[in-house]
């Protein structure tokens, strides 16, 4: 497979404009300006490219929702607020190939007829912010940004916007609120951002990885991109692999690759010669799979959906046979409780109760009915809030308990203590 997103990872100076241009960078722009914006949107629609941030919504369709005759400016917001536990792909993409993101932004803005793009980067990524700012400055100096992009009659300004530490700002309407200088609390939809987004104007929010696939689609054509992958899961995807694995890291693979093959051949298998116990396939928010289930799936949207989980952000977490699932879930409970924005009662209170009950179970103070209590709270958190954050804890709670119930019920006998179940640090 020809790498698309990671093709410059081995090029040492790809982050500079000279290194980028020496490897074909910004060359799609000459083709871009022979196309109409509508043709660009059609091409991306035909490619089948889906949003890589987690939801998997077709990117071209999202762009097509933007009304162009309102007389209001149209904005592109780049979602670089990567924070889904298990996911670290955008950080590497931005570090190693920042100009490819800018080229994707130029193409997307041309398609949307947008003249302003904001890159909303999470606050912790200060080094990445500086790398991107340097790339933006270089692109302005070479005329790829500014009043006449690549000498054509198209104006585009790109600004960095630094977040300040809030997981929820990765949700697109929370990101918009934050960009407007407010607390990052998601908005009720509809209206969708495509119609009423930032500053009350039509807005598209796209993930970094999504935008970085766009130059290839314009250069080689939708058909070439759609040839990669399987069915409605076209193209390549970055999977971030972490946890009990021999070779953690980011891997670009064609969608549809069997998990078993990926695990053994590319990631070097489970560490320390141990057996696989469970896998989080697409970031901490998706239902967990047992080893047996995982070995049967292929890594694409449909296969993972059929197995009762989701491809999500591609944050894959490998757990070996010594992992305590009660503590694993308790850690997720801590996280979601900490990051709930507090706006909706089922989420604010539900994450709190789940966290409290799990903390007690982990201390070994198990009461009869704890599993059913957790399941009941999770059920009441699902589908009852403004955004899907609440579901993002409810789904793991349900799947962990359903698949590893005996561990929760036996936690009292085991006398679990945080940090003592597995000694992994050597």
């Amino acid at each position, binding site marked *: 497979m020809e790498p698309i997103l990671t093709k410059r990872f081995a090029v040492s100076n790809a982050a500079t404009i000279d290194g980028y241009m020496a490897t074909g960078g910004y060359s799609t722009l000459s083709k871009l300006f022979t196309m109409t914006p509508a043709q660009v949107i059609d091409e991306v629609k035909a490619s089948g490219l889906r949003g890589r941030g987690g939801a998997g919504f077709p990117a071209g369709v999202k762009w097509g929702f933007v009304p162009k005759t309102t007389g209001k*400016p149209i904005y592109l917001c780049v979602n670089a607020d990567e*924070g*889904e*536990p*298990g*996911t*670290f792909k*955008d*950080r590497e993409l931005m570090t190693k190939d920042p100009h490819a993101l800018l080229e994707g932004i130029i193409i997307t803005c041309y398609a949307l007829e947008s003249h302003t793009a*904001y890159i909303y980067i*999470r*606050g*912790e*990524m*200060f*080094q990445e912010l500086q790398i991107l700012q340097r790339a933006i400055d270089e692109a302005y100096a070479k005329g790829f940004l500014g009043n006449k992009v690549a000498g054509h009659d198209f104006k585009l*300004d790109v*600004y960095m*916007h*630094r*977040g*300040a*530490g*809030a*997981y929820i700002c990765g949700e697109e309407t929370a990101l918009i609120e934050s*960009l*407007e*200088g*407010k*607390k*990052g609390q998601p908005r009720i939809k509809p209206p969708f951002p495509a119609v009423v987004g930032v*500053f009350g104007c039509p807005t598209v929010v796209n993930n970094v990885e999504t935008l970085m696939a766009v130059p290839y689609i314009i250069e080689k054509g939708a058909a070439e991109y759609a040839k990669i992958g399987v069915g409605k899961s076209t193209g390549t995807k970055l999977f971030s692999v*972490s*946890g*009990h694995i021999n070779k*953690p*890291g*980011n891997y670009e693979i064609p969608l549809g690759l069997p998990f078993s093959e990926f695990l053994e051949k590319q990631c070097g298998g489970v560490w320390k010669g141990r057996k696989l116990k469970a896998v*989080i396939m697409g970031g*901490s928010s998706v239902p967990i799979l047992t080893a047996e289930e995982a070995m049967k799936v292929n890594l694409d949207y449909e296969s993972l959906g059929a197995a009762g989980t989701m491809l999500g952000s591609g*944050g894959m*977490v490998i*757990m070996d046979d010594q*992992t305590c699932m009660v*503590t*694993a879930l308790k*850690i*997720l409970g*801590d*996280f979601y409780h*900490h*990051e709930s924005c507090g706006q909706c009662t089922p989420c604010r209170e539900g994450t709190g109760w789940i966290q409290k009950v799990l903390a007690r179970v982990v201390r070994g103070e198990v009461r009869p009915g704890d599993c059913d209590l957790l399941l009941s709270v999770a059920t009441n958190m699902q589908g009852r809030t403004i955004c899907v954050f609440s579901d993002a804890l409810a789904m793991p709670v349900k799947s962990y308990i359903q698949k590893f119930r005996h561990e929760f019920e036996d936690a009292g006998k085991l006398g679990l203590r*945080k*940090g*003592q179940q*597995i*000694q*992994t*640090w*050597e």
Partner: protein
Amino acid sequence: MSFKFTNERMKNVEELLTHYPADHKQAALLPILWEVQYQEGWISKEAMVEVARICGCTPAHVQEVVTFYTMYNQEPPAKYHLQVCRNICCWLRGAGETTQYLEEKLGIKPGEMTEDRKFKLSEVECLAACGGGPMMQVNDDYQLNLTRESIDKLLKDLK
């Protein structure tokens, strides 16, 4: 105690305001709060009042934003802020032990600062560096694949 931007910082603030529509100055709030923190290391009540004036919003709104996000310091910071990721991927590779080791070395618990204000220890959520776990952020830098040896060396190097 009053707050004032230095001339150089004020130029950054004026530049930041041009990034957003003229009737949406408040959009520059987060970036301007960062300018305060770059200059002072933390965000005082007086600075919030000044930022509110610049952004055309109320000091209450600024405080609401400062307290919603975790990265704005509401007190003078330690010289080195050690933030250990406690989330799932780092935990699988020994984040609990990492924190324990730092607690022993520094004699403080997460959330506390050493008496000389040199180190503050915190447990934080996923920093998007799961492939390098266990890891921590030290001020603006990521430190990956932590071991007892690498922590010993790091603490020695932080003067």
